[in-house]
């Protein structure tokens, strides 16, 4: 059983004059961490909301093809049922926090699901601990930093004990440190808690080193999926669909123009440093 299985999915919002997704087939294994990469309007949010059932249950949309999450067809289940399987975190932390305290925010989901009081209390402590907000229970969410708000939104989703977490451009409003913290949290969720994670983003910079797979989207189509190295190493294919290449591959590109020694392949600074080191070593022995 797959965490997510989309087969030839075409989606068009009500009133729109073209499809937002066209014949997308895409699968995510259980426990996998996947980056959904694409420029503005590529259809990332649409795919995220499909995975969670918000489309078509909350946002009217005509659908073709089939979508299953954990073996169950999304159209057969209401969103509330879905939220116990697939949690979603949106781009703007501000608009998804609406309670007056951190604790209430995290308790909101399980309360709606009529979970026992003791159990809610355990889940709240558990979720706050994971996201590093232990002891913040009574703080108003508005007093938190951007990164903390985003992590609170994640905790609020985790407390419903989903098996998969979908994050739509979670790093968008964050500073570089906030991003690093976010990705280390997500990696932790995958490794230690076995969560399946789908991250949508417009660039791959921080995610490149921690995801298992990258899915590249453009104009409503799934272009390619593969390992980070397969998808991200060469800058030109990314650039052609409006996705900024990794800084590492831009450096290789710049070096290559001068020395023709470097080939695309490294996606981390360390790997590239190794290549440069070797090249320098060879240059030393040449002389």
């Amino acid at each position: 059983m797959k965490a997510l299985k989309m087969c030839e999915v075409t989606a068009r919002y009500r009133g729109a004059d073209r499809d937002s997704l066209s014949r997308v087939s895409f699968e995510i294994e259980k426990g996998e961490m996947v980056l959904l990469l694409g420029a503005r309007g590529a259809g990332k949010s649409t795919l995220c909301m499909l995975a969670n059932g918000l489309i078509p249950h909350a946002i009217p949309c005509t659908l073709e093809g089939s979508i299953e999450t954990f073996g169950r067809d999304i159209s057969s289940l209401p969103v509330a049922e879905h939220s116990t399987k697939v949690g979603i975190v949106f781009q703007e932390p501000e608009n998804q926090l609406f309670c007056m305290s951190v604790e209430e925010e995290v308790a909101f989901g399980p309360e709606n699901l009529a979970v026992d009081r003791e159990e809610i209390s355990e889940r709240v402590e558990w979720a706050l601990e994971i996201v590093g907000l232990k002891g913040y229970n009574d703080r108003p969410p508005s007093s938190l930093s951007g990164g903390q708000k985003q992590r609170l939104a994640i905790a609020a989703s985790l407390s419903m004990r989903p098996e998969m977490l979908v994050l739509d451009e979670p790093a968008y409003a964050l500073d570089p440190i906030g991003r690093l913290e976010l990705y280390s949290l997500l990696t932790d969720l995958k490794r230690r808690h076995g969560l399946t994670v789908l991250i949508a983003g417009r660039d791959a910079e921080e995610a490149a080193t921690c995801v298992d797979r990258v899915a590249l989207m453009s104009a409503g189509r799934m272009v390619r999926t593969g390992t980070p190295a397969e998808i991200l190493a060469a800058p030109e294919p990314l650039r052609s669909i409006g996705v900024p290449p990794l800084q590492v591959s831009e450096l290789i590109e710049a070096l290559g123009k001068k020395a023709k020694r470097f080939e695309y392949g490294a996606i981390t600074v360390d790997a590239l440093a190794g290549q440069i080191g070797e090249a320098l070593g060879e240059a030393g022995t040449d002389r």
Partner: protein
Amino acid sequence: MTGFVDLYSENDTFLHRLDPRVKILSVLLLSLLAFVLSTLYSLVVLLAFIFLLLFLSRASLSRTWFALRFVLRFMTLIVILWPIFDSAGTPVWATLGPIKITEPAVWRGFTSAARVGCLACVWYILMFTTSQRDLVRALVRMGLRFDYGLTIAISLRFFPSFMATIYSIIDAQRARGLEFNRGGLIKRSRKYVAVLVPAVVSALRTADSLSLALQSRAYGAKARRTYLRQLKMRRSDFAALAIVTALFVVPFVAKYVFFVHI
């Protein structure tokens, strides 16, 4: 700006610790009491009692003063205006053209001012010592539908950011050369449309993403939801409620059963 909506200040007095439901009921009872009492003396005693409580709530002086300023102004206005419009009774103290100032009217002015003071201050005590969160929670536990409670909570939560949006739009429009304090009334109000339209659009967008967030957090999944925090009446809560009830019932019975003039 937030001070305008939220008068609560965190502290640990017995008033803060009291169950919010008890506080709401007590404030209602004391408000009713202000209508039961009809002599200036008894109202002044009640006002003194309420001031004592206000003092015990240990709100900061600046906050108390901020809140009381309006009440005091309003009370002064009543004391001055009442005798001008009410000329019943004797003796007449002064006659200014058609206006007759009589002694009973002056006292009635003071009585009404005291009553207004009681009503306002007793609600201030509630606002000073109860967080919005507890207020909403108490209202829901007292039978308000959860969706209404949630709506109130969300409005309170988003009001400051809505105001912040309006101010940043005003700034943005100013930066583009829109001058707000120029031109006649019509011209000016037209300029404010340039603020209101983006503000409303942004509010609608917020509402949209909020509704998605609510649904993805299983809002409305079960007909009966559970609550993490329950309100529990402790002995002190029962005691406080008993005292306030007595404070209301004794004068009430005295007045309407034994016809004591208080």
